[in-house]
């Protein structure tokens, strides 16, 4: 590796690397291809949209940099962000991204991925078999368009899709809410650059996104509206369920229903419409 004589620490590292016993490498191709899903192509290259894209990107960058500057310097804005942190129902955390720190260039907010790009279509029976519980169907004037399952590293999630809204259902993500109060720091300094596909330093528009409290059948619920936001599931051990982070551009109602079922209703509609659907569940 290096023609120069090695220092003792380099020698130790080389020796340790040679003796290091890695676990057997898992075969990832099948799982990766299943997640990628059929018919979904990578996002086009930026350069493929000459003319509009550079200007649009420049404008977006300007907005982001301006917003970052406001967030960094405006104390009230930072505190407003902090107000969002840690709000969650048991088993589901609403993840508002941390305030960017000086010198860190924010990356763009990731777009929402279409459901059928990573979820597996199935039937009610198939969903029950894979999910281990009976999916609940709300009463609404909408027609059921599809049932999907997603396996987040052993945590099955069922999604019933009605087009205008989709109801996510997951069981047994039992977490004490208190654990997550203020669990996300206001700023997360990171010396590491963001890479393609990463969005740790993304931003949401506090000017448009709103978080409100409500109830579904007497149980606490949260209503996020007005713009893109992250949601993710939290597992029994208190750790986020790997891969469950999701950008939602529609409005979202989250609550914990009876029997340990967590619901997330993503809807093009108002809170009243969402509550009507949510309260129709058994």
């Amino acid at each position, binding site marked *: 590796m290096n023609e120069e004589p*090695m220092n003792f620490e380099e020698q130790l590292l080389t020796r340790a690397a040679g003796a290091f016993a890695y676990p057997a490498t898992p075969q990832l191709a099948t799982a*990766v291809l299943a997640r990628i899903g059929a018919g979904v192509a990578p996002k086009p290259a930026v350069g493929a949209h000459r003319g509009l894209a550079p200007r649009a990107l420049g404008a977006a960058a300007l907005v982001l940099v301006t917003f970052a500057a406001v967030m960094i310097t405006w104390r009230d804005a930072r505190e407003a962000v902090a107000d969002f942190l840690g709000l969650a129902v048991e088993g589901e955390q609403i993840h508002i991204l941390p305030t960017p720190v000086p010198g860190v260039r924010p990356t763009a907010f990731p777009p929402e991925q279409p459901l059928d790009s990573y979820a597996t279509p199935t039937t009610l029976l198939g969903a029950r078999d894979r999910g281990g519980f009976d999916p609940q169907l709300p009463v609404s004037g909408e027609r059921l368009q599809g049932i999907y399952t997603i396996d987040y590293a052993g945590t099955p999630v069922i999604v019933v899709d009605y087009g205008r809204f989709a109801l996510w259902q997951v069981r047994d993500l039992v977490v004490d809410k208190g654990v997550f109060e203020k669990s996300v720091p206001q700023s997360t300094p990171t010396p590491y650059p963001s890479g*393609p*596909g990463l969005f740790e330093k993304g931003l949401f528009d506090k000017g448009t996104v709103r978080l409100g409290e409500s109830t579904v059948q007497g149980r606490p619920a949260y209503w996020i509206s007005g713009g893109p936001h992250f949601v993710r599931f939290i597992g029994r051990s208190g750790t986020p369920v790997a891969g469950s982070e999701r950008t939602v551009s529609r409005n979202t109602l989250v609550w914990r229903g009876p029997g340990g079922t967590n619901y997330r209703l993503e809807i093009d509609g108002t809170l009243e419409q969402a509550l009507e659907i949510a309260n129709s569940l058994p």
Partner: protein
Amino acid sequence: MEHDPAEQRLVLLAQRGDQQAFGQLVTRYEQVAFRAAYLVVRERATAEDVAQEGFVRAYQGLGQFRPNEPFRPWLLRIVTNLALNEVRARKRRGGLLERLGWATATSEPPADRAALAGEGQQELWNAVNELGAEDRVVLYLRYFLELPEREIAFAIGKAPGTVKSRLSRASGRLRGVIEARYPSLRSEALGGGVRDE
């Protein structure tokens, strides 16, 4: 940098939506991706999740990838960033649990003893864990995954000319930790005839 025409072809096909071509890239690089993740997170299941997520995000980001560049370090950049994020999240959670009196926070994931061959390696691992994330990653890439410096540069998103100095700084800091906390490691290495500076 050497360029692999077969890899370039697979990348081009994958960019056009050929998932089987991307599957071949996964098969080709799943070991190095998994190992990179494992070195950082030190848990097999988490490393598998991280590696898998890294490939999915690489696929989603293929449009921004230039096929005339090497795929492996680009992938490793994604994977190591994800792994570091996981470690940071774990650290935050550990700190919170400790404040609540529910658990003792650990600053780093526990080393998988099954992966270590002896007490000396455990001490070296402890010493490495005392380094910052950037230092650890650059050492893993160089000594454990044996990437050439130019690929390390791609992987950490820095200019190729800075890799040598980054490696030097990281190993220098490791030397300082060893001399201060684990002097027996130094004696052990010197006993093997290693040059001392």
